[in-house]
């Protein structure tokens, strides 16, 4: 399934290859009798290098879709192709990294040892990996290398998690509401930094959120899902220029985008 879908022309005019190709995907949980359909007939193509935010009411399966790409959920039907191969092969090749809602740092390891974790685990060629110290500097944690996670604020912990995700130089970054538990000021700051990082590295980013402004501010594309069962409502391009700054959120153009997203979201309910 992998090679065929990778050669398929991108349905979007970017001309680049596809980072993720999802085709008629079904995800069902539970056994017979209490079966629950999380996703039904989801088809979407995500071009390489894109920043896609995933938005939808709770229970629409946006996290499930992300976990499916990460090979954390068993596929019931259809196919998912990640850079032309199945999720399992992509995982084993470390094509992607995952950032969880909770920073998920190992609490007994120092900051630097947490960032080093991908270097210590698995039988991979690690010669091309990024320097953990440089990554910590990049996310603004220079000097805190030897701190333990509980000594850091929530925002700092999430920066460590991002540095850890970037250490393998992944081609795709999967982020499951990474800033959902942070206060608004920290979240805004991390949003800006994430955009800068995306523009510098060219990594494809799939970003699940439940915040409309966050989805509009970050996303080159917004993938809107609707619930019961989870399916694609709309896959739309956000026509706002990069680089984007926080001040842009007060412009009429931005507010038009969020208003449109909000009305779409209301249709989903």
């Amino acid at each position, binding site marked *: 399934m992998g090679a065929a879908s990778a050669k398929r022309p991108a349905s979007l005019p970017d001309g680049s290859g596809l980072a993720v190709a999802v085709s008629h995907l079904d995800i069902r949980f539970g056994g017979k009798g209490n079966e629950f359909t999380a996703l039904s007939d989801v088809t979407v193509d995500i071009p390489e290098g894109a920043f896609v935010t995933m938005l939808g009411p709770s229970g629409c399966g946006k996290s499930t879709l992300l976990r499916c790409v990460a090979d954390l959920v068993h596929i019931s039907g259809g196919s998912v192709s990640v850079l032309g191969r199945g999720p399992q092969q992509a995982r084993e090749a470390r094509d992607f*990294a995952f950032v969880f809602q909770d920073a998920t740092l*190992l609490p007994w390891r120092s900051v630097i040892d947490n960032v080093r974790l991908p270097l*210590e685990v698995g039988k991979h060629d690690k010669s091309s990996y990024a320097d953990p110290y440089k990554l910590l500097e990049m996310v603004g944690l220079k000097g805190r290398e030897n701190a333990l*996670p*509980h000594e850091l604020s929530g925002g700092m912990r999430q920066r460590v998690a991002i540095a850890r995700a970037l250490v393998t130089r992944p081609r795709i970054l999967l982020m499951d509401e990474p800033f959902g538990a942070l206060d608004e000021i920290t979240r805004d700051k991390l949003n800006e930094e994430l955009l800068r990082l995306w523009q510098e590295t060219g990594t494809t980013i799939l970003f699940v959120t439940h915040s409309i402004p966050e989805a509009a501010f970050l996303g080159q594309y917004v993938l809107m899902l609707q619930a019961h069962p989870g399916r694609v409502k709309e896959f739309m391009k956000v026509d706002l220029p990069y680089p984007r700054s926080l001040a842009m959120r007060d412009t009429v153009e931005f507010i038009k985008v969020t208003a449109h997203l909000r009305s779409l979201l209301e249709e989903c309910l």
Partner: protein
Amino acid sequence: MSDVIQTGRRDMGSVPRKIALIDATVGVFSRNIPAIAAAVGCILLWQLVVWIFKIPTFMAPSPIDVVFALRDNAATLMRNFLPTLLEAVLGFIFGNLVAILLAIWFVHSKVAEKAFYPIAVFVKAIPIIALAPILVLIFGNGITPKIIIAGLICFFPTLVNMVQGLRSAPPAMLDLMRVLSASQSEILWKVRIPSSLPFLFAALKIAATSSVMGAIVAEWIGSSFGLGALIIEATYNFRSPLLYATVVIAALLAVVLFFIVSVVETKVVRWKPAGQH
């Protein structure tokens, strides 16, 4: 002039350290004033009760009698202390080691857990006092049955806590390891075992004191050495001060083992559990 400065500088290094040491000692003392006062008060009360009511020594010796007994029987106490120490420590090590290995096996094999957990519960359900004669019959009157009993008493709390501890790793942490394509042994060593340590130490602290109890109870059954045997002997001969002195030594041993485990815990577990910030 320069001499003065030099001496001044030389002293700078050692004096603050000395002061810090004294400060720490005074600090520990002043923090524990209520505990120390309560203990001294109890001992004084005991002494007074024995004096006022003229309680015969064989019934209940006074603290002073016990102190004299400790001094007069120092050699006897030491001779019997060492085997008990050895049994308690070896029992602690083997009992916990078996429990930890079994817990690791249980976490990786549902079948093993289903097969052996009921047996572990059954072994736990047998009263230790009833088990001691059986083990003496099998292993003779040496040190082995005592080690086994001390070990058995440690075994169950550690098994239960360790199984829970190994399972305590948050699902997201296991997802992270899966995304990194980590092997089972990498997950065990890098996630499961570290996250089990707070649970393990809670059990080890219980085991530290109960292993002493196990060794002593085992020595009650036809043993000719150890603090347990000394307790029986002193009781039958109405040597109450010696009996009390032995009990004090046994309690001190348990407290010291508990203290050692606590110190190791603070050195090893220096993080706060995940989710508790």
